[in-house]
């Protein structure tokens, strides 16, 4: 598992996060470690730093982790979660500037072939270059 870059999915919605992860598993397979989080503990919409940190831990690979997010808070909380990681990990975690579902599938496809983190991020962001 740790031979490939890991993927973390962070959505405001638990259902979107779970559904996105399901698409990655079904379309790409299980060669990449994958974790997702979304929603607040009360069942509403939201993201929180603790859940994102746990997801990063769960998907961690020595080759790094690519995070796919949906809207505003998902990105800022992901960046905060990265800052709270051990220093040696921080440079090996990136937030991709890509749509969450498509980006996750593209990133996982690239990661499944053993590509380095930079290639995984570039592939996710290549979809809608902006």
């Amino acid at each position, binding site marked *: 598992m740790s031979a490939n870059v890991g993927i973390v999915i962070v959505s405001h919605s638990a259902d979107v996060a779970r559904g996105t992860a399901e698409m990655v598993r079904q379309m790409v*397979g299980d060669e990449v470690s994958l974790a997702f989080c979304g929603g607040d503990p009360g069942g509403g919409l939201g993201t929180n730093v603790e859940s994102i940190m746990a997801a990063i831990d769960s998907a961690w690979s020595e080759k790094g982790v690519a995070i796919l997010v949906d809207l505003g808070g998902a990105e800022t909380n992901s960046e905060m979660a990265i800052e709270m990681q051990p220093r040696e990990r921080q440079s090996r975690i990136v937030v991709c500037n890509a749509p969450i579902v498509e980006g996750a*599938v593209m990133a996982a*496809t690239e990661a499944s*072939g053993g590509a380095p983190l930079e290639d995984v991020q570039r592939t996710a962001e*290549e979809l809608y270059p902006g």
Partner: protein
Amino acid sequence: MSISEVSGKVLLTHAAGLHARPSVKLTKLAKTFAAKVEVGPGAEGPWIDAKSIVKVMAAKVPQGVNLYVRAEGADAAAAVAALIGLVERDFDETAADAASG
């Protein structure tokens, strides 16, 4: 090491054409070879890097066209044979998978 170019073609019969899931499978398979591997909807291209999931998916090659495959490198012949085999097996999908695109 001799560099040889190998090419072939196969009829794309998958109901959805080269859509999302078939594209992922094709790309993943292409990545297992060292050779440069390209696919295209005609003998003259346009050629698409078969290892690029974004480019393969964006090409939207439809059902019923011949998919041309060409590869260059030490394992080019194996790569072309493997990709053609995948398309011939309809991407190893069941009819139900194919119907849902």
